[in-house]
């Protein structure tokens, strides 16, 4: 089952195309991770999927309907986005910021209803932010702040979650916590998750489906076993990688690597 279809999409900024003619589909109820070197167009592709950038040609389809023709609020009820770097305005508490995640579900003056409170409190709880609920967002550490933004995306209560590098700013344990949380949301509630990760081993361990990109084009798409190969990593990152198997998840992981001599 496909939930998002990217159909011959070309997208970029004012006078430069970053992604040219890319087609790929995102399976429903799975975790899909996009990997690739800096500047390969991962974030740009995510922005196109999340309708922040308009495609210059081609289209993104959500359940078969072009995303730009749908009401943006309707899309927001089904799809939440965590951008790479988000800035909170001063003076907001954690609870208040997370409560903004209910925006697409509210109408009129937007007093919070029982259901909203449930979503917000649940999101705060699963991201482990309960004790910070009434603290000001500015007073938190980088990692805590990142979790607040994740909580906001969760409070949106959508079946699809799109996250651009959700583990940046987090320490080892918190990185894993976030990924395990996403895994749980996927397993228990069948949510579709699309994210960009820089850590290949995390990508391999937690995804069902991986997309590797370079220079705005798709290099290889498939299961971690298919994508995490020496050959593919060489063509995507230009590295010479030694692969082994993750003792926990039995997925292929990269033990260590060096820069590829031939092409340097």
């Amino acid at each position, binding site marked *: 089952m496909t939930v998002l279809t990217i159909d011959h999409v070309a997208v970029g900024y*004012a006078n430069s195309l970053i992604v040219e003619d890319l087609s790929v589909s995102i399976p429903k109820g799975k975790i899909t991770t996009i990997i690739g070197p800096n500047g390969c167009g991962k974030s740009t592709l995510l*922005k196109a999927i*999340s*309708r*922040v950038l*308009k495609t210059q040609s081609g289209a993104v389809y959500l359940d078969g309907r072009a995303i730009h023709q749908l009401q*943006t*609020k*309707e*899309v*927001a*009820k089904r*799809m*939440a*986005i*965590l*951008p790479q770097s*988000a*800035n*909170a*305005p*001063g*003076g*907001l*508490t954690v*609870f*208040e910021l997370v409560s*903004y*995640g209910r*925006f*697409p579900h*509210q109408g*009129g*003056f*937007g*007093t*919070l*209803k*029982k259901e909203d*409170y*449930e979503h917000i*409190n649940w999101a705060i709880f699963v991201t482990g932010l309960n004790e910070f*609920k*009434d603290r000001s967002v500015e007073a938190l550490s980088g990692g805590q702040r990142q979790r607040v933004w994740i909580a906001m*995306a969760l409070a*949106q209560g959508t079946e699809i979650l*799109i996250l651009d590098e959700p583990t940046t700013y987090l320490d080892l344990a918190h990185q894993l916590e976030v990924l395990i949380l996403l895994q749980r949301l996927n397993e228990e509630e069948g949510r579709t998750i699309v994210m960009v990760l820089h850590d290949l081993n995390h990508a391999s361990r937690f995804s069902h489906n991986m997309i590797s990109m370079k220079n705005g084009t798709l290099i290889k798409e498939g299961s971690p076993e298919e994508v995490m190969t020496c050959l593919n990593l060489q063509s995507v990152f230009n590295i010479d990688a030694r692969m082994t198997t993750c003792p926990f998840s039995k997925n292929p992981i990269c033990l260590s690597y060096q820069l590829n001599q031939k092409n340097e």
Partner: protein
Amino acid sequence: MKEQTYMTNSQRKSMRKNLFIIGILCLLIVIVFMISMNTGFIRLSPLEVIQTLFGSGTEKQHLILFEFRLPRIIIAVLVGMGLAVSGCVLQGISQNALADPGILGINAGAGLAVMLFISFFPSTTAVPVFLLPILAFTGAGITAIIIYALSYKRNEGISPMRLILTGVAIAAGISSAMIVLTLRLSPDNYQFVATWLAGSIWGSNWKFVLSLLPWIVVLIPFIFSKARVLNVLNLGDLTATGLGASIEKERRVLLAAAVGLAGASVSISGGIGFVGLIGPHLARQLVGSRHQYVIPTAALTGGLLVLIADTIGRWILQPSEIPAGIVVAVIGAPYFLYLLTRIKD
């Protein structure tokens, strides 16, 4: 209410605190209102004021209060509200702390229109008072439209940064046009224009109240209903889109509302631009950054500020008057500076 059982204690506390602050501001407005009714060439005791308000004063008292002081006070409050809320919206959508109605060229446009009129029809010593607000409003509106058109790009729409830069450029252009015009004015006309530009509530007349009131009554509640949108826009374009706000459309609508409010206010009061800058800042200091509270608080602070300024301006150099715009800056700026030293970023 049943929903509120979901709030934690401290949330309930902060809500109560915010409502309390709003209450205090209302109370202050009432107090200053009473003082202001008393202020003027002819002194009236508070009791006389109340008596007259309820219809049992002398005819002379009645005339002073209802025909001179009351409309002026109401205009002061309305103008302050309009400018502060307009500033609130502009700071919200541009995410720039320096934004105020001035960046949309509203003050400059209104000023230029007035000045042009007086330069080319200097013979009219008694300038038709009802023509000026209309001229000023037209000037403000045209300038705002020009700025919007110049910063609009077909594929990208309006970027806040481009809007601000365009606004600054146009306002600078208009200001220098005004310098040229200034040199051509006769001293009498110059004095009139300068007073107008400095921001004074000179239209103490019920007709002005009626012409301003609809804008305030319609637009402020409308903007208040968009409080959540402003909250979300504050998070940046990316997040706002993700949350399902149609940013381009919302921005356009909010801009139009801000221009309407500020244009209507400026057309009656001249340039009291500083209120639009500090009103929202003061409000955020008091109640945090959620627009559900910021908007009403900014409206009240703005109204209070202009009312106090106008009262002081009438009282301090009796029988001549100091334009409210000057007093606003003289009392507002030091307080604002004090605040700046207190707050963390």
